């Protein structure tokens, strides 16, 4: 049994699975049930300025039978009074002293407002703070959430104000609605952040109803942009985590969020530099009990790999994530088709013929239809393997290069000596 405990900037939890600040962490009742189910920590639904919510709030993007490929919401932060939340945090912390409770906070960008709320939540014994600079809708119109999270100076200044009074670790939650997330991550670090978390939701409109021409979701016939999350955003979130992890100026732990639905997703985020993960959509889709499979799966994975502690996974793949210009131009792979398992759907042939390099030939052998890749013309793009519906029918095989490795950057510097 591997050790699943994590320590994220001094915040300890029995496992790396935290619920993200969102509807699952709206109340003490829910967070306590989540802890009973096995979640290691919870980032409480964002506390802050008074707001009101609308109805409806959510929409899902279904894709090819997957009910929730992506999830869109126009919900704001908590609409419950601060004192009620604080009482429930106090009571939950008493019942679960070893679980992590992090207070997510969002107030207007004023020093005294940050000071006031930090003192109040720390007084009830939270283990850490998460500054919500990420909510893309509703709050941004009032200068909060992603409106302040998109401006590095505001991220730095507000983090600094919080750090002036905070006694617990401060996590800055970043918005993905920005071209380069490392800019705001660096600003958070300059402001004194103990950790960063990412991502909050991505600006989105889930759809338009073709019968009524209303937006999806709509509020009495009108819509507004929402925030996108769920499995569809995982690659975007994973890249943002990785970009921060490999940036030497973002030298604080990362809490990974975005589309994490199972232990495999969690392990990928940790390998790419996250010390722990936060989950929202998957818990909303399947309930708190999904954490059982996450814990079991991660534990078995670590045991199989002979890894004693989950903390040993953190960042192991980061050095493998580099710049395009540092990739070897002479590394070659080619597709190989196993005609024994192929069902002759021809999807690979059509994909390669229409949209890649026209190198999958059709032929017949003893009356049987067959396919073969002309290796010399294959560029190893993977497309045929991606579209093939049969596991194992197409393998991508490494083909030894006859010339030594050379990256684009090496090549350009070599050629630059010969441009006379």
């Amino acid at each position, binding site marked *: 049994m591997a050790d699943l405990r994590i320590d994220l900037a001094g915040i300890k939890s029995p496992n790396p699975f935290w619920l993200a600040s969102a509807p699952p962490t709206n109340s003490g009742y829910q967070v306590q049930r989540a802890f009973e189910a096995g979640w290691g920590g919870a980032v409480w639904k964002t506390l802050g300025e008074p707001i009101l919510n609308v109805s409806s709030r959510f929409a899902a993007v279904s894709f090819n039978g997957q009910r929730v490929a992506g999830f869109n919401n126009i919900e704001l932060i908590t609409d419950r009074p601060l004192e009620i939340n604080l009482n429930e945090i106090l009571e939950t912390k008493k019942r679960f002293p070893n679980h992590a409770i992090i207070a997510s906070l969002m107030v207007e960008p004023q020093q005294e407002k940050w000071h006031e709320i930090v003192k109040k939540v720390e007084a009830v014994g939270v283990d850490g703070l998460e500054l919500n600079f990420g909510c893309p809708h509703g709050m941004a119109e009032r200068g909060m959430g992603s409106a302040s999270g998109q401006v590095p100076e505001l991220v730095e200044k507000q983090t600094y104000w919080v750090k002036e009074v905070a006694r617990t670790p401060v996590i800055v939650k970043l918005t993905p609605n920005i071209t380069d997330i490392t800019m705001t991550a660096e600003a958070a670090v300059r402001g004194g952040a103990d950790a960063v978390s990412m991502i909050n939701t991505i600006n989105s409109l889930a759809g338009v109803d073709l019968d009524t021409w209303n937006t999806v979701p709509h509020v009495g016939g009108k819509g507004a942009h929402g925030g996108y999350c769920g499995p569809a955003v995982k690659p975007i979130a994973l890249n943002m985590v990785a970009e921060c992890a490999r940036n030497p100026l973002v030298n604080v732990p990362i809490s990974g969020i975005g589309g994490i639905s199972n232990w495999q997703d969690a392990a990928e985020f940790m390998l790419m530099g996250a010390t722990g993960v936060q989950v929202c959509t998957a818990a909303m889709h399947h309930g708190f009990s999904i954490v059982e499979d996450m814990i079991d799966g991660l534990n078995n994975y670590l045991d199989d790999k002979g890894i004693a502690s989950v903390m040993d996974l953190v960042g192991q793949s980061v050095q493998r994530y580099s710049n395009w210009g540092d990739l070897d131009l002479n590394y070659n792979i080619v597709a190989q088709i196993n005609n024994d398992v192929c069902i002759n759907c021809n999807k690979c042939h059509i994909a390669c013929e229409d949209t890649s390099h026209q190198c999958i030939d059709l032929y017949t052998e003893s009356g049987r239809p067959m396919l073969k890749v002309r290796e010399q*013309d294959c560029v190893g793009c993977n497309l045929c393997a991606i579209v093939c519906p049969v596991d194992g029918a197409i393998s991508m095989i490494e083909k030894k290069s006859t*010339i030594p490795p050379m990256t684009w950057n090496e*090549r350009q510097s070599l*050629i630059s000596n010969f441009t006379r």
Partner: protein
Amino acid sequence: MSDHLLSLDEMKQVDGYLASGFKIHSVHENLSGMFVEFKRQEEDVCLQILTAEARKYLAAKLLEQTQ
């Protein structure tokens, strides 16, 4: 001619020049491909390379020449 055959042909030409004592003197890349100037004493020839494979190959030969 397929891209592959064209690249084989271009690499053969590169090998041909190098085998007969030419050295790569200059390399320029632009939207029309790679232009390689080979020199052997006073002799001077220019080869236009079109294929990506042969452009990679040329760089490998250039590396060999500098080593």
